[in-house]
């Protein structure tokens, strides 16, 4: 077991700050926020994604970790106290660096849309790459989010997810210590 790095130095304040960042990112899609700035994390795991995991995942949360994060697995399970589940279909949180097939993930039900999965996705960068035009709740005028590292057909994939509303999957995009969010309510155009 390799847990060579500490988690939050002050778990209460730092997880509250990260929670606030996630909340703001979801409430105003397209805005980019800082999270986990002081966190040192094992190799492939971005500090922002690590902070989100430390804040939102615990022993009662079903987490699926993509195989490419094997080197960070021990760190995540130790500091979050979570036992990862073997299949993404049964997970509340999905950690990945390539967008999984959103249609196979848990999307909740009309009575309980909150039972859906949240995808924590690593991207290559913000402010460059693919230009996404966002509109919907929380946006008085359409916003623009530039994300590097999303698939070509992302707007089409997202349209299918958005059509399920109030069901559907929420997406947290992480790069380094910065994060942005695409809640299921937002419309994405290329």
């Amino acid at each position, binding site marked *: *077991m390799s*847990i*060579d*790095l*500490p*988690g939050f130095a002050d*778990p209460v304040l730092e997880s509250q700050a990260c929670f606030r960042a996630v909340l703001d990112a979801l409430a105003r899609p397209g805005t980019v926020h800082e999270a986990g700035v002081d966190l040192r994390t094992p190799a492939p795991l971005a500090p922002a994604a690590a902070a989100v995991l430390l804040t939102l995942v615990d022993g009662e949360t079903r987490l699926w970790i993509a195989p490419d994060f094997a080197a960070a697995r021990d760190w995540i399970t*130790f*500091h979050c106290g979570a036992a990862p589940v073997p299949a993404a279909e049964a997970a509340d949180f999905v950690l990945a660096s390539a967008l999984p097939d959103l249609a196979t993930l848990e999307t909740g039900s009309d009575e309980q849309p909150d039972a859906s999965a949240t995808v924590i996705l690593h991207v290559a960068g913000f402010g460059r790459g693919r230009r996404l035009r966002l509109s919907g709740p929380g946006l008085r005028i359409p916003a623009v989010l530039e994300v590097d590292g999303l698939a070509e057909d992302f707007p089409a994939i997202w349209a299918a997810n958005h059509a399920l509303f109030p069901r559907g999957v929420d997406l947290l995009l992480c790069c380094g210590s910065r994060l942005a969010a695409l809640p299921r309510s937002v419309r994405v155009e290329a």
Partner: protein
Amino acid sequence: MPNTAPPETPPPPQAARRHWMSVLARAGAGEIAALLAALPALPGHVRLRGPEAGLVMLRGRAGGGGAAFNLGEMTVMRCTVRLADGPVGHAYVTGRDAAQAELAALLDAALQDPARHDALQAAVIAPLAARQLAARDAAARRAAATKVNFFTMATMRTDS
């Protein structure tokens, strides 16, 4: 699990670690620090988690055949540290003494290092274990002096 291994095989490493962890969990921070003071200083360490307080549920049974019930919650401190040169040590101790949890985790890490194990085992764990055994023995003696054998209790125990 009954210990059926022949006496000449050494105890598995988990058993040895379990022993020193339990001794450290029962020793006070002052006691451990006093014994450590006589030894060369341990290398620096990084706190990986804690020391932080939490609660564990204690479960009990009434009588030999009773179902388990929740007796109550108890405060526990836990700490995980990594020594500058490698091993990771954990400690869970009852109470609210952060210094004890950190010292116990530090010693757990150091005791896993073969180069340090024997000196620490002899200078810290053995005296603490002897002290704890003597204290338990004295308490058992005091209790035994007041023991009363009830005939009815003895016959009730035989049915289950």
